[in-house]
């Protein structure tokens, strides 16, 4: 049975995180997800991730897509709104015209 071979066993319950192909995955097996979170925490390196906290009310009623438009001139990024007033932005491209140091 082809599903019993090694390759499908390695790839089971692993979902692509983004269409641009950064090679990161969501794990649908809870243990794998916990291990990934643990590893990420241990590495403690997020050189392209920015955490922004806004004054009360600034983004409260904005969806992630609307918030991302406020920053689109800086480059390409994933945005995650984690509370009513804060977001994580992970850049995968910083526009050197806007941020010359990069």
């Amino acid at each position: 049975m082809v599903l019993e071979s090694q390759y499908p066993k390695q790839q089971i319950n692993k979902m692509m995180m983004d269409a641009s192909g950064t090679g990161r995955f969501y794990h649908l097996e809870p243990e794998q997800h916990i291990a990934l979170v643990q590893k990420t925490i241990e590495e403690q390196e997020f050189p392209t991730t920015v955490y922004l906290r806004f004054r009360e009310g600034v983004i409260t009623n904005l969806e992630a897509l609307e918030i991302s438009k406020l920053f689109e001139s800086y480059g390409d990024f994933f945005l995650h709104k984690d509370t009513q007033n804060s977001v994580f932005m992970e850049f995968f491209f910083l526009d050197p015209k806007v941020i010359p140091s990069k």
Partner: protein
Amino acid sequence: MGFSLVVQAMIESKKPIIGHNCMYDWLYLFNQFIGPLPETYLQFSQQWHERFPYTYDTKVLAYNSKAFYNTSLGQVYEKCVNDDKFKSNLRWRFDLSNQFTNYEGQALLSHYHEAAYDAHMTGVVFMHILKHKEMETARIVSRKGKKGGGQGHRHGHSQNSNSEAAQSSQASTQEEFKNPKDLKH
């Protein structure tokens, strides 16, 4: 009710569930037909895994196989059915009985993003990639067997052999494409 009954049947069957770049599809399916999405991702993964223990993403299969420059469904499908490395590995055909002739003949590209055709392409791609990797591994094991034929320990080490073969397979395919970061998806 309606489609929820189909989802229920899928859950009870415990058959593999396969999609292409399908994380949002699973979230949508869960929210529409199973229950409200949980507060955290961990809770979601637990609840999903209880219901669907065998889930595959053909985009992940294609990406990690290192056999495709572009892992969009249409491109992977085209390669699987046209490339010599893939196309002769499997044979399949549509069941055209009962007047199901829509996907017959030319101009199949116009069916891209049509749900049933995307499902068909996903199934074809799934089987082709797994078959390709299975054969790749078998070739490597066979090559190693020939090289190390005089050592007399071919039996009883299948687990290790397979694991080594997979590593070699990854190494050789990465070499083939020189820089895997150039892969487009």
